[in-house]
């Protein structure tokens, strides 16, 4: 299933990539594949911007504005006047 703005903030700097394959390993939606010892974004539209790839990129080749896509958290942050600091508050 696709949502809104999937993968919009995801960037990959191939020059920094050492081809370790961690991003491909951790991505729950198969966004990456390592091709000729470099990671590549194969399916940006499936990216939910969870941030697992960035977290596990030892070369800091990946950037993504990560967060949890939860309306309850967004609404409660709005009510606190704290948009940008959404914290998921449930299990």
């Amino acid at each position, binding site marked *: *299933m*696709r*949502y*809104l*703005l*999937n*993968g*919009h*903030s995801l960037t990959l700097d191939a020059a920094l990539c050492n081809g370790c394959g*961690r991003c491909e*390993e*951790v*991505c*729950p*939606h*198969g966004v990456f594949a390592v091709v000729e010892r470099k990671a590549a974004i194969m399916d940006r539209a*499936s*990216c*939910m*911007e*969870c*941030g*697992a790839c960035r*977290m*596990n990129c*030892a070369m800091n080749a990946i950037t993504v*504005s*990560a*967060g*949890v*896509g*939860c*309306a*309850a*958290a*967004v*609404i409660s942050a*709005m009510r606190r006047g704290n*948009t940008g600091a*959404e*914290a*998921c508050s*449930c*299990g």
Partner: protein
Amino acid sequence: MGQGSCGCGCGQPPLTTLSPLEGPPRNLTTTITWRDVLGGWKVRWGLRRMKYRVTPGLYRVGMPDSGSPVLVTANYKLTVDTVRRSLAGLDVWLLVLDTKGVNVWCAAGKGTFGTTELVRRIQAANLREVVKHRELVLPQLGATGVAAHEVKRATGFSVHYGPVRARDIAAYLAAGMQATRAMRRVTFGWKERLAVAPVEVVAALRPLLAVIALVAALDLFRHHGLTRNALTGMLPFLAAVVTGGVLVPLLLPWLPFRAFAHKGAVAGALAAGALLLWRPLPAVEAAGAALLIVAITSYMAMTFTGSTTFTTLAGVRREVRRALPLILIAAAAGAILQFTGAFI
């Protein structure tokens, strides 16, 4: 480790059937009892959901030795139950992190299933002495909170991200820690959607009961007794909660539009149409009922984003900013029309 309470700072004794012993690794069975099944149902329906925990620390599953694999998981008891059931027949170590009773993926998003906690647990469990190898198997969805290279640097242990689902662990280990493509993908089939649906229904229950009480009170006030009008007044709310809480999750892939608020509005419009065909109302009340149903289902659908596996924070922000004002206006207009209509 293990001070008699779960060590998470909540001050509550660990609510678990597993014995919270101190010191050496504890044993963990792979059998699930009726009590575990009942407990799982209760938390799915929101009963003491945040207190369903297992004492963190190192557990022994089967008869592991210094060469056995070390698996890592969260201390939400529903998670531990799922993992240990999938480990039947295996001899492994299970390192349970203190995620404050939250499942792996959500805890990783918050950072409690994270590098710091993992490094701390490895040291607290004296893992370097317990096993000869220097390898850990983490659930893939824990990767949002854990930086594998930092764990390696801090402890010497190499992180392998195992399958997304616990039921694939045995196959993953048997294949020499190799996950198939399918094991690495998150899915969101109808069974998974229905399993998380009760959260929204339970959240809607309290406001629903308040509205039902209000409708009944108004009817008592006007007619000096409960009449059929009370039921007619309650029906739109009941229909909205069932539609938003159960039908929207179930029909999610087939509802048009990508924004959940839109999906919910479509489902709500269909539900309102069906209800009004079944029990026609005067025009003003009908319009009010339809607006109320659409507003409620749209809102409930939007909050379902948090239970899904593919929504982005940026997308949810945009959706909430655009849809929430319209939902509030529709709800207010609907309430005014329905209640004034009833007085005409």
